[in-house]
């Protein structure tokens, strides 16, 4: 079952490619726990998910992953400094109210951070904006009136953000329909996956 979900989430394979064996992972906004389960099975990681929603917490328990029910918006005060090798925020950055703070918390709690987010600069999004509409695309499936997303950004925006805050980008992958994009990623890439750490 988790295999099926993993196929639906190409960022999982990208993330797993970066996570070293037998490390400690904190997955923020972990959903049903399928990424953590995938990393437990493929990379032998240990760790926890953080999730606010009751049904998803239950799904995590069924998936056999540790989950702490809580609200990311309140910070990560339950977690100590540098207590994880990786803190992952998968397709959640754009839905948190204080994105800057959460990235700061990720690098307080973890040695490195991994975020994935839908690239607002993807050409399909640009085209719809140009046509006068809020974009709806494969990684942005919501209408403006029911979207959980509050802080959308482009790949270029996130890179500027990292540069201005002394965040070192370790690796970057850009995907469209699960395939890597190398040509004009901020235009042809639908989904961005960033691996970053403290210091330039």
């Amino acid at each position, binding site marked *: 079952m988790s295999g099926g979900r993993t196929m639906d989430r190409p960022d999982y394979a990208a993330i797993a490619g970066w996570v070293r064996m037998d490390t400690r992972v904190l997955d923020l906004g972990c959903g049903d726990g399928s990424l953590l389960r995938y990393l437990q099975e493929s990379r032998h990681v240990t760790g926890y998910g953080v999730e606010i929603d009751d049904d998803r917490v239950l799904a995590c328990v069924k998936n056999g992953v540790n989950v702490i029910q*809580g609200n990311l918006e309140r910070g990560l005060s339950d977690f100590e400094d540098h207590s994880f090798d990786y803190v992952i925020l998968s397709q959640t950055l754009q839905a948190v109210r204080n994105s800057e703070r959460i990235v700061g918390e990720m690098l307080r709690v973890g040695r490195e951070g991994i975020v994935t987010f839908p690239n607002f600069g993807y050409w399909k999004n640009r085209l719809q904006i140009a046509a006068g509409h809020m974009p709806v695309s494969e990684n942005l499936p919501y209408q403006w009136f029911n979207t959980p997303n509050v802080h959308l950004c482009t790949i270029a925006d996130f890179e500027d953000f990292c540069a201005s805050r002394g965040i070192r980008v370790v690796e970057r992958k850009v995907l469209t329909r699960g395939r890597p994009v190398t040509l004009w990623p901020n235009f042809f890439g639908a989904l961005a996956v960033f691996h970053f750490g403290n210091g330039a």
Partner: protein
Amino acid sequence: MDGSIDNRSVGVVAPQVARFAEPVRLRCGAVIDEYELVFETYGTLNADRSNAILVCHALNASHHAAGQYADDPHNVGWWDNIIGPGKPVDTNRYFVIGVNNLGGCHGSTGPKSVNPRTGRPWGAQFPVVTVEDWVATQARLADHLGIRRFAAVMGGSLGAMQALAWTVMFPERVRHALVIACAPNLSAQNIAFNEVARQAIITDPDFHGGDYYEHGVTPKRGLRVARMVGHITYLSDDEMANKFGRQLKQGRPTYSFDTDFEIESYLRHQGNKFAEYFDANTYLRITKVLDYFDPALDHGGNLARALAPAQARFLVVSFTTDWRFSPDRSREIVTALLHNRHHVTYAEIDAPHGHDAFLLDDARYHRLVAAYLERVAGGIVA
């Protein structure tokens, strides 16, 4: 629906008694030479004895956690809604043990038992026990039943404190701990409520310094008030408002000290019921068990250090409207477990019922316990 509830009962159960001749030294220094623990079991112990779950009771409950008695079918176990075939604590899968703790009044050796040294009821002489003393004696029961390691130890409130203590007193004997509506120790406010309850009992003229058995009386007035105070803390303000509000029994005020308001009637009813069956000396001691519980105390107040030895995996559950043991108190436990890199899952159930929620049939809560224990069962070697 009703039919399926019947099918999911463990049915008729009978208590058993285990007798222990080896003295037990309590935390307070006192020694009890010999004692009995009364217990019940549901389900079947598997061949390698790996499917046992110990259910620890809270303040006023007993070993009778599930099912009913043949001669008293209305006496249904206190956690019957969660224990049974096909229920979250599934007796088709697990061997579940309920035990009345030492110092109790439901059959285990306690203040109303006869002290073999004097030939008279222990009464005031029965020592003040602690959570750790209970766990130590429960471990002897486990030995008696041939259970080396529990699949899980679980409880709510004071029961959860026992589960927590198990994980550090006998780390290798607990695979999973279900710590529900718990706190790592009592707050000053919690202790204050307990002290009011104790004073109600101790100042009852029928208390006779704790040796009321010889006088043929029981301090029922004190017990009633003690129970009434307790009940106030088990419910949330909202739940009390929903259940009783300002409803008047007669529909209009009587301008007297009769039970005008429904809530008064409810509290008196609960108090009366309780005073009929519960032993005041036991109540005094159990409130002290709560007050003294503080695993961090021996570790310079550092809960993380106290929980460091645990090897169990934890499910910690709190309820949003529980103001007696609030979610923040459960989070203290979770933070300490995280510090130690222990396996822990924490769920905060949005339930309106206050502290009592752990005893109630809340779908989200029960689904979670069921899912967790299903996962535990997956780890049992058949």
